[in-house]
C-alpha cells in the first residue's frame, strides 16, 4: 500500500495505582521519560507526539490533551490527541503508526495517560453523561447497567454460568502477580473469591470489574531505517484497525462486538493474516470486565462465537497454553487507567516479542501478537497487530 514499515523501539510506564500523588502531567512525564530512556533517545530526537487520554471530566481540567502536552514531551512539537474512550490505548499507537508510516516523521512518541482519582465521590459520576440526556438520564442509570446488560445478553445467548466467566478474572489477576506495575495482582485468588464478591448489578460482581486506576504508558515508534539503528530487536506494527458501531447502543446485538471484528479484519488484512487462530501467538484483548475478554476474543476471530469460555476452561489461554491471552494480567490484574490500559497491552506485546517479559514471558518464541481495546459509547473497536 506504499506505507513505510514502522517499529516500536522503546516502552515505559508508571506503576498503576489507585490514586497517585502525581498530577496527570507528572504521570505523562514518568511514562514518557522511561520510554525514551529504554531506547536511549533524548527529547530533541522526538519529532512528533501522539497523546491518548480519555474524559476531561476525570481530571477536571480544560482541554486535557493540551494540558498534558508538556509532560508528554510535546513542547514545541507537532502534537495530536485522540480520544475514543477505553479504545484510546490501542487507537493512539495506530495514530502514531500513520505519523511514521506516511513518511512525515521518523520518530514519534506515543503517550497514554489517565488520572481518574480526582472525581468525587466516585469516577463513575464522570460517566453519567454516557447516557442520552433526553431518553436515558431521567431513568437514573449508572455505568454498571450497560456492562451488566451486555454481560447478561452474552451469558444467555450461549448458556453460560458465572463460573465460565469468572475464570478469566482468576487467570488475569494471577498473571498480574508477575507484573511489576500491577495494582491487583494476586497469585492466590480463586474462583470462589470472585463468586463470593458483592453483587453490584447482577450478573456483575465486584471482582468481575477492573479497578479505578491512575497511570500512564508510553511507546517510541520509528521508521524502519531509524529503528534498525536504535535497536537490534525492533517489533513491527504489522496491522492497525479501528471501527465504530452505532451510538444507539440499545439497537445493537449486545452479545457480539461487531465493531471489534471489523477493526480486526482491517488490521489482519494489513498484516497478511488469514487464519488468526493459527498465525497469532499472543492475544491481549481488552478486559475491563471478565466477560469482555471472552466477548472480544470472539470478535477478534480467535475463537468461534460462544466458544471462548470453553477454551479458557481447557487452559488454552493460560500463559503455557496454545494461545496465551492477557499474559500481562490485563486490566483485571494490572489496572484500568482508562486510556493508558490499552497501551499497557501493546507494551506487553513489545516486551513479550522481544523475550523481555520476565516472569510473565510466554514460552516458545512468540512471533506475533494482537492487542485490542474498546470503549467510547461502548462501540469502538481498536486493534493493533505486532510482529517480529
Amino acid at each position: 500500500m506504499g506505507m513505510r514499515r514502522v517499529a516500536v523501539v522503546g516502552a515505559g510506564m508508571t506503576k498503576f495505582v489507585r490514586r497517585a500523588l502525581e498530577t496527570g502531567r507528572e504521570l505523562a512525564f514518568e511514562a514518557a521519560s522511561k520510554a525514551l530512556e529504554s531506547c536511549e533517545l533524548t527529547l530533541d530526537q522526538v519529532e512528533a507526539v501522539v497523546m491518548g487520554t480519555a474524559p476531561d471530566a476525570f481530571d477536571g481540567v480544560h482541554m486535557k490533551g493540551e494540558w498534558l502536552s508538556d509532560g508528554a514531551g510535546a513542547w514545541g512539537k507537532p502534537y495530536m490527541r485522540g480520544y475514543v474512550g477505553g479504545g484510546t490505548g490501542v487507537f493512539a499507537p495506530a495514530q502514531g503508526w500513520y505519523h511514521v508510516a506516511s513518511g512525515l516523521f521518523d520518530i514519534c512518541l506515543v503517550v497514554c495517560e489517565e488520572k481518574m482519582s480526582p472525581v468525587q465521590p466516585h469516577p463513575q459520576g464522570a460517566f453519567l453523561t454516557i447516557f442520552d440526556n433526553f431518553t436515558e438520564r431521567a431513568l437514573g442509570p449508572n455505568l454498571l447497567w450497560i456492562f451488566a446488560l451486555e454481560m447478561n445478553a452474552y451469558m444467555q445467548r450461549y448458556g453460560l454460568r458465572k463460573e465460565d466467566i469468572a475464570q478469566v478474572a482468576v487467570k488475569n489477576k494471577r498473571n498480574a502477580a508477575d507484573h511489576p506495575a500491577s495494582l491487583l495482582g494476586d497469585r492466590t485468588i480463586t474462583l470462589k473469591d470472585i463468586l463470593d464478591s458483592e453483587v453490584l448489578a447482577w450478573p456483575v460482581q465486584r471482582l468481575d470489574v477492573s479497578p479505578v486506576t491512575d497511570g500512564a504508558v508510553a511507546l517510541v515508534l520509528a521508521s524502519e531505517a531509524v529503528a534498525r539503528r536504535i535497536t537490534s530487536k525492533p517489533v513491527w506494527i504489522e496491522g492497525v484497525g479501528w471501527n465504530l458501531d452505532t451510538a444507539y447502543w440499545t439497537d445493537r446485538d449486545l452479545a457480539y462486538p461487531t465493531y471489534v471484528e471489523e477493526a480486526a479484519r482491517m488490521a489482519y488484512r494489513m498484516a497478511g493474516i488469514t487464519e488468526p487462530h493459527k498465525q497469532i501467538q499472543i492475544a491481549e484483548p481488552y478486559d475491563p470486565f471478565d466477560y469482555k475478554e471472552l466477548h472480544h476474543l470472539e470478535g477478534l476471530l480467535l475463537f468461534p462465537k460462544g466458544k471462548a469460555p470453553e477454551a479458557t476452561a481447557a487452559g488454552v489461554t493460560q500463559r503455557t497454553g496454545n494461545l496465551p491471552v492477557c499474559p500481562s494480567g490485563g486490566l483485571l490484574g494490572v489496572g484500568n487507567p482508562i486510556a493508558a490500559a490499552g497501551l499497557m497491552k501493546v507494551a506487553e506485546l513489545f516486551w513479550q516479542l522481544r523475550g523481555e517479559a520476565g516472569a510473565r514471558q510466554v514460552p516458545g518464541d512468540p512471533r506475533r501478537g494482537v492487542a485490542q481495546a474498546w470503549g467510547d459509547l461502548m462501540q469502538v473497536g481498536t486493534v493493533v497487530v505486532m510482529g517480529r
Partner: protein
Amino acid sequence: MGILHSLEHPVEAGVWRGSIPLQHRYTAGVAGERFLRGLKEGKIYGTRCARCNYTYVPARLYCERCLSHLGQQAWLEIGLEGEVLSFTEVHIDPAGRPLDKPRWVGLIRLRGASGVLMHNLEGVTQENARVGLAVKAVFRPAKERSGSINDIRHFAPA
C-alpha cells in the same frame, strides 16, 4: 433535499434542561506538594533545568523543554522580589457582574525565574501601573497559611 423539507408535521422541538454536576479533589503533584508547602513557610521555590538554563516558578518535576527530571539538586529558593510584566484592572466577576471595587491582577517575573506568575496586585493604580514596576510578595500571617497560592496575599510596589 434537506431534512426540514421532508417534515410532514411541524413538531414542537423542545428544550430539555439538565446539569452535569462534577466534583474534583486535586492532588498538587510531587513538585506541587513541595512548592505549596514552601509557600506555607513563606518561601517561593523554583526548579532549574541546568541543561536548558530555565528556572520554573512554580517549581516543576520535569523540564518541558528537554524532559529532564528536575530532582533534588534542581530546587532553589527564589526571592520575593520581581517586576510586573503585565497588569490589568478587572471590573467584573466570573459571572459578568460588576465588582464593588475594581481588582488589579498582574504577571510578575520574580528575580531568578524564567517565566511569570499570575497573582493579585495591591497598591497599583492607574497612575503608577507600568511594565517594569518593581514589586514584592506580601504573605498572609503564618497562621493563616494553608499551603495554597493564596498564602501570598498579593504583590505590592517594593
